[in-house]
Structures are given as structure tokens and as C-alpha cells.
């Protein structure tokens, strides 16, 4: 293929705000969740909708946020109907494995997909989860400019997740991806997933003026 040739790919997205709760209630398979830098508290809103009608065990492998930070957020905004287990690979360099606490395991950061697979297996063995969440793989590969070899490796990773790690109980694997961290997730990667969702945060700037800005000539 000529590398200078520019071709068009069209992505089609359907807004499902009205039936998202129903969709997430029975979520199964390998799911890609794209988002534009959602805060953890906004991700919690999303997690709360997943299998909301029964109690589940969730393994959360964090490559972007430390356990300390997540614990702090979860104290203010708890996750309902879910028991959470963390693998913190952010603080993994600093904490020796013997300091593991009840619901958090520390691990060294993965260098490639092979290592992340080992971390997932390690987590499944220890926690026996219903749902696995990886947040996120953007550190490992540039998904907007995949080489043929990387694409093959990524498909093989998803294939192994689907056929070796998922089973009747542990049947939901969610891969979070922050689109603000990398330019795009190329659609060539999409066929490997059972479902692709995009969570789009809409912000509004509040112009909150200080008293001095509001009343510049008054004596405060």
C-alpha cells in the first residue's frame, strides 16, 4: 500500500442517552469505551450503570490513577452494588508486593501487551471478578498510527482476552481509552470489540467573577 495515499474512513455513531441504562444493565463481551478525559467521578456514574440490577465483583486495573487518589474519590462518590478490587500499576514502583492491602494489589507498570495480559491473569486469579476494567492502554501503543505488526498483536491480545480469560461469570471486559491523550483510535481496531461506546463530556465555562472584578470601584 502506498503510505502517502490518504483514504477516508467514516465512523457512524448513534446517540443512546435515552436507553443507556438498559444497554449497560446486561453488558457483556469485550467493550471499548472512548472518552474525552472524563474525571473519575464521571466514570463512576458510568460504572454504576453497568449490571446495575445485581451485585458484581469488579477488577479495576489502573494505569493512570493511583489507588490513593481513587480511594479518595470513592469515599465521596461510592460505587453501588459492586465490590472493587484494584491493581495499581501507577504506584507499583514505590510499593513492595508485601504491602498489598485487602482490595488493592500493586504491580510494576506493564511494558507491552504481553505483560498486561500477565497482570490481568494475576488479577483474575486473586479476585475472581465478574467485570474487568483497564484504564487505560493509551500508554502502551499509539493507536492512531498502528503498524501492521502492532495491529496483529492487538487483535491477538483481544482474542486471548475473549477466549482464554472471559467465562460465564467473568464475562465483561472494559477497555477505557482517553481520546484527549492520543489523537484518535483508528477504526481498523474496532472489529476486535463486541461493542464500542463513546462518552462525550460537554462542558460550559462559568464566568465567576471575584467581588473585586464585579465591583471594581467599590471599597471592599
Amino acid at each position, binding site marked *: 500500500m502506498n503510505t502517502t495515499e*490518504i*483514504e477516508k474512513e467514516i*465512523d457512524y455513531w*448513534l446517540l443512546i442517552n435515552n436507553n443507556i441504562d438498559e444497554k449497560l444493565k446486561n453488558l457483556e463481551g469485550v467493550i471499548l469505551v472512548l472518552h474525552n478525559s472524563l474525571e473519575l467521578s464521571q466514570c463512576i456514574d458510568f460504572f454504576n450503570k453497568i449490571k446495575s440490577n445485581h451485585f458484581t465483583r469488579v477488577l479495576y486495573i489502573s494505569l493512570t490513577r493511583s489507588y490513593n487518589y481513587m480511594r479518595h474519590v470513592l469515599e465521596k462518590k461510592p460505587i453501588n452494588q459492586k465490590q472493587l478490587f484494584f491493581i495499581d500499576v501507577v504506584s507499583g514502583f514505590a510499593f513492595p508486593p508485601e504491602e498489598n492491602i485487602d482490595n488493592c494489589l500493586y504491580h510494576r507498570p506493564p511494558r507491552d501487551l504481553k505483560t498486561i495480559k500477565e497482570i490481568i491473569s494475576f488479577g483474575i486469579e486473586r479476585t475472581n471478578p465478574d467485570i474487568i476494567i483497564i484504564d487505560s492502554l493509551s500508554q502502551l501503543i499509539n493507536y492512531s498510527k498502528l503498524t*501492521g505488526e502492532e495491529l496483529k498483536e492487538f487483535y491477538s491480545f483481544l482474542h486471548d482476552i475473549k477466549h482464554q480469560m472471559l467465562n460465564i461469570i467473568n464475562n465483561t471486559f472494559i477497555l477505557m481509552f482517553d481520546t484527549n491523550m492520543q489523537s484518535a483510535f483508528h477504526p481498523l481496531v474496532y472489529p476486535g470489540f463486541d461493542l464500542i461506546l*463513546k462518552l*462525550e463530556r460537554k462542558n*460550559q*465555562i462559568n464566568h465567576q467573577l*471575584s467581588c473585586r472584578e464585579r465591583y471594581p470601584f467599590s471599597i471592599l
Partner: protein
Amino acid sequence: MEESEVIQVNYWKEIRKEISKTLDSLHGLVLLIHNSIEFSDLIGFLNKLYINQEKKVLYISLINSYSHIKQTIQEHPLYSKKLFVVDCVSGFLLELQDEIDCIYRKPPQHLEEMKKLLIKSIEWANPNIIVVDSISQFINFSTPTEIELHNLYTFLKTIREDAARYSHDAIILLYDDRMMGPMKKLPTMFTDMIIKLEIIKEKPEWKD
């Protein structure tokens, strides 16, 4: 001091695998958001609608001239659909004679005029599918005022009711969010479906 507040989290589902099924059952008022698609891409989209069904399409154009449309259709044919055009681009500059499949009109200045043009054009073409390209011209939806939002919602509500009354298959309103900035709050209450088309122009560079 400026503070940013989250006003909405939208949930989108990627539908490439089920696009034919979704577009075959398209019905009512549809908002089609895109990142500056060309007319040829719009033909690609229309070709996926109601495949193999004979349909009349009314295309109200505020951005493409009829001559450009004709030329593009020669290169990218529109299958099983007959196109009727309301050209609001050329009509602004020149006095042109209406044709069998095209009428020239001055561009509407606001949504109320757009609605009137829509009604007259429907009477002329009696279409199954109506495409308005685009509503981006009327307000900047990224920073709309209360009045602009009220006008938009009234417009959407009226044409949605009309669509149901005259049993058109679909009225599709295009909105270019690259040109006008993304819509701050999507009008989910006043539409039957919201679809987003994202064009990705580069393919990955293969090493092997």
C-alpha cells in the same frame, strides 16, 4: 475566574456493523452531526438509507449549488432515489430558471423562514426523505442564547409534528460541528434520532 462545569455526558454507540439495519429503519426527525463532510459523503450516506427502495429525496441546500450537486452525482451516483433540489446558493446571486428537479430560492434568514421554505418545497416535491443542509447557518449552537435555543426547539417540534402528519419517512437535519463548534446540549427531546458521522482522513502508515 473561569470555571468549567459539566453540563451533559453523551453516550454514543459505534454502529458501523449495524449501519444498514439502523438506516433502513430510520424514521422521524433525525439530526445528523458531522465534521465537515463533502456532498459525495452525503450521497454515500443516502445510498445506505432504505437500500433498494424507490424513494424521492428533497435536498434543501444552503451550502452546495445545483451545478455542483449534478457534477458530484455524475461521479458518485445516487441509487434507487430520485433527487429534488432547492438551491439556496445560486438563487442568491443569479436569476435562474427553475428546472424539473431543481428550484432556486433565496436563502432563509432564520428558522421561521426555513420552516416556510420547507413546507413549500414539500408541496412541490412530495418527497419521502427530506434533507436540510444545513441548520448550522442559523445559530451558533456552541454558544446559543436562550432565545436561539427556544427558536430551535420550536422549529424542531413543529417539523417533527409535520413529519408525523404527512408520513414522510425521515427529515434529516445536518449540522457541521467542525465549522460551527460542537452543540453544547443536544436536542434529544425534540428529535427521534441523533447520528454522528466522523470522517477520518488518514490511514495508518504500515511499516510492512
